[in-house]
């Protein structure tokens, strides 16, 4: 039991007091804007099908269950049921995510704005960050622009073979026959993210192949984009948002595509969440939603270089 000497918390008491203050400020931010807090379940029979996100399995009375990787599906069911604007500030779980910036159990802030698009929601993300750190600089750029600026390649129009060659150099031979989305992720994470400006950088119009649950569209240059954005605070991925997909048929086909990709990478199949599909069938209102990692936000506020330093007990201590 080498962990026995790790009974103490990773965060100092001063950090835990700041954590408590930040949680209170986040709730206050949404209270003032009449966004309702919802505490949706962490344990469910269904989970995400996303082939890059693995759920931790659990059981309840011999029924297979999963710890939720985000509150998204439950929140969308509430939106479809007429909740109006809502936020959730709670835990999320992701299997095998351990590292300096990852903990398998972490605190996620997620909120939805009815009738908004992703650009209005980006404004609110910036307002929230500035409310916590008033001097934060905010910059916005499209995924294509930031990619071209740093790598001189248009990520939407480049040949897959060229992206694979670049990924092999940035990573290893293992990327030689990777998908477009995975090559782009590697190039962005390794070559672009560390070069981003200080402060909050909001990157929007992700390639359509990385749409996840965002609506897709075509930009003025004829690029197939997804209406998805990400927020980076001091070069650390902090938030991911969408102009939400509301079309149930399109949602069902993305679930099917997830299953195909899971099978391809040898992962166990996951049944699509039929309750979510039923809710979307009934009608998910047009909305934009975003999820933000609260522990990472605290890391930036504290200048901490490990997530363990801002949590009471990270997985290493559990």
């Amino acid at each position, binding site marked *: 039991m080498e962990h026995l000497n790790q009974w103490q918390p990773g965060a100092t008491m001063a950090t835990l007091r700041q954590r408590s203050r930040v949680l209170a400020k986040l709730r206050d931010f949404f209270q003032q804007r009449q966004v309702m807090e919802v505490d949706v379940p962490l344990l469910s029979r269904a989970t995400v099908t*996303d082939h*890059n*996100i693995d759920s931790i399995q659990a059981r309840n009375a011999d029924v297979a269950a999963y710890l939720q990787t985000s509150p998204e599906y439950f929140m969308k069911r509430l939106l479809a049921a007429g909740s109006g604007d809502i936020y959730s500030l709670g835990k999320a779980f992701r299997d*095998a*995510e*351990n*590292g*300096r*910036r*990852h903990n398998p159990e972490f605190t996620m802030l997620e909120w939805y704005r009815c009738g908004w698009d992703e650009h209005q929601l980006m404004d609110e993300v910036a307002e929230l960050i500035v409310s916590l750190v008033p001097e934060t600089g905010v910059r916005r750029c499209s995924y294509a622009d930031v990619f071209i600026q740093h790598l001189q390649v248009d990520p939407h129009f480049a040949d897959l073979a060229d992206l694979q060659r670049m990924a092999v150099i*940035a*990573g*290893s031979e*293992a*990327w030689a026959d990777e998908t477009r*989305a*995975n090559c782009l*992720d*590697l190039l*962005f*994470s*390794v070559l672009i993210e560390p070069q981003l400006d200080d402060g909050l950088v909001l990157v929007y119009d992700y390639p359509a192949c*990385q749409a*996840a649950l965002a609506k897709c569209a075509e930009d003025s240059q004829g690029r197939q984009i997804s209406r998805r954005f*990400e927020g980076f605070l001091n070069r650390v*991925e902090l938030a*991911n948002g969408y102009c939400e997909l509301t079309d149930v048929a399109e949602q069902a086909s993305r679930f099917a595509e997830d299953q195909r990709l899971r099978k391809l990478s040898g992962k166990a199949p996951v049944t699509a969440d039929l309750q979510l599909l039923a809710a979307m069938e009934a009608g998910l209102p047009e909305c934009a939603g975003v*999820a933000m990692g609260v522990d990472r936000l605290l890391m930036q506020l504290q200048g901490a270089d490990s997530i363990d330093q801002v949590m009471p007990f990270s997985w290493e201590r559990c």
Partner: protein
Amino acid sequence: MSNYSTNEFRSGLKVMLDGDPCSILDNELVKPGKGQAFNRVKLRNLKTGRVLEKTFKSGEQLEAADVMDTDMQYLYNDGDFWCFMEPDTFEQHQATENAVGDALIWLSEQDTCVVTLFNGVPLSVTPPNHVELEIVETDPGLRGDTAQGGSKPAKLVTGAVVKVPLFLDQGEIIRVDTRTGEYQGRVSAK
């Protein structure tokens, strides 16, 4: 030999990379929220000493390197090889000049060193942190000058040259830190 997966990579683990044994220095998980997980890994090539950074897909595996650190007594140099002995088994190992490397100038017979074995063959030698060696060549000592600063080069019996205080003389035995090559003090006159 077994394999290690990226999620088992931790500092100090010895693995094979491109045919060379390497020691892992650092392993960081990179996982875009919606993207594929990969690992940025820093390794030291134990043959060349060079530090390199590699990116692996999470779940990729590397073969474990059969690398072992063993305390051994230095016996003698026969002209081609440096001979070391395991004190428990009396088993002897021949190290090449390449393996002995920078340890060469600190080795005196009977000293206990750490010999790193790769597939049973000495790959590198780490001398004791502190050694006591005789001065064989230096300018005559300035008597009485024990308090003033100032230093002079002194050649030791093993061939190392270290800076020593002015009052020391040929034939004296001094203590040296092999990690920094710094003089630590006078042990005794011969």
